């Protein structure tokens, strides 16, 4: 197991590892906090709409496929294919943010704010921080699409897969483990 075996730039793997640790720390803190008020946390969690989270998972993993195809196209010298993949992946990110916006609007209209219950503090902080990464990723993918060098496309795709990875890890504790 050598560092040279890692695909892509080492700094991207440091970033991916760091982000996993940050979100894992947040989820662990939420899970520990849940022990102090299991009924309150379960009641609060039941107010969330898991269908939107499931829809967003489909959107995000599909955009991940487009990012992966863009990376493959760029590696093969197909800049047009790479650009198309990047833009489709970015579009997926925009759809994710739109669905998340609808979900937040429903939450707020139901009286769910960040200080309504400690569960919602974790919910808004973790999903909001993740959504900020999605927004940054959309900008990154669109920027890389302007200049589709293989290394840049690979770095953009890696960032996008990290966003995808974090989402599948935080989803069960936030939405499903009641």
């Amino acid at each position, binding site marked *: 197991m050598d560092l040279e075996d890692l695909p892509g730039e080492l700094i991207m793997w440091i970033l991916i590892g760091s982000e996993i640790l940050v979100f894992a720390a947040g989820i*662990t803190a939420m899970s520990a906090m849940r022990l102090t008020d299991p009924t309150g946390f379960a009641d609060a969690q039941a107010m969330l709409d898991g269908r939107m989270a499931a829809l967003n998972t489909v959107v995000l993993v599909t955009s991940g496929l487009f990012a992966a195809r863009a990376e493959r196209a760029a590696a093969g010298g197909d800049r047009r294919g790479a650009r198309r993949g990047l833009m489709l992946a970015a579009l997926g990110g925009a759809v994710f943010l739109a669905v998340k916006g609808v979900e937040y609007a429903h939450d707020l209209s139901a009286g769910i704010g960040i200080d309504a219950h400690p569960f919602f503090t974790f919910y808004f902080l973790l999903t909001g921080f993740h959504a900020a990464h999605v927004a940054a990723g959309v900008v990154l993918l669109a920027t890389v699409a302007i200049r589709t060098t293989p290394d840049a496309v690979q770095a953009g795709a890696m960032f996008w897969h990290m966003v995808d990875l974090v989402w599948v890890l935080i989803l069960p504790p936030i939405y499903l483990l009641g």
Partner: protein
Amino acid sequence: MRDRLTLNWLILIALVAVTAALSTQDGRIAAAALLVLAWAKARAILGGFLHLDRAPGWLAAFVVPLGLWMGLVWALAAVR
């Protein structure tokens, strides 16, 4: 299927579908199953999209700690 990326995506979509089907279930076994499904999705992303399938040892370096962390999350959910 010849296209490994599309196959990986299909695996992820199947895992999402099973997660959605299981999401109505309560209890420790269902919680464990949901976390195993999340771990499988993470493995598919790391191995298939981030290409750790081709990096000897590195896939395990990511998915084993993730599995241990999920065990901790499950334990915290189970002791309530």
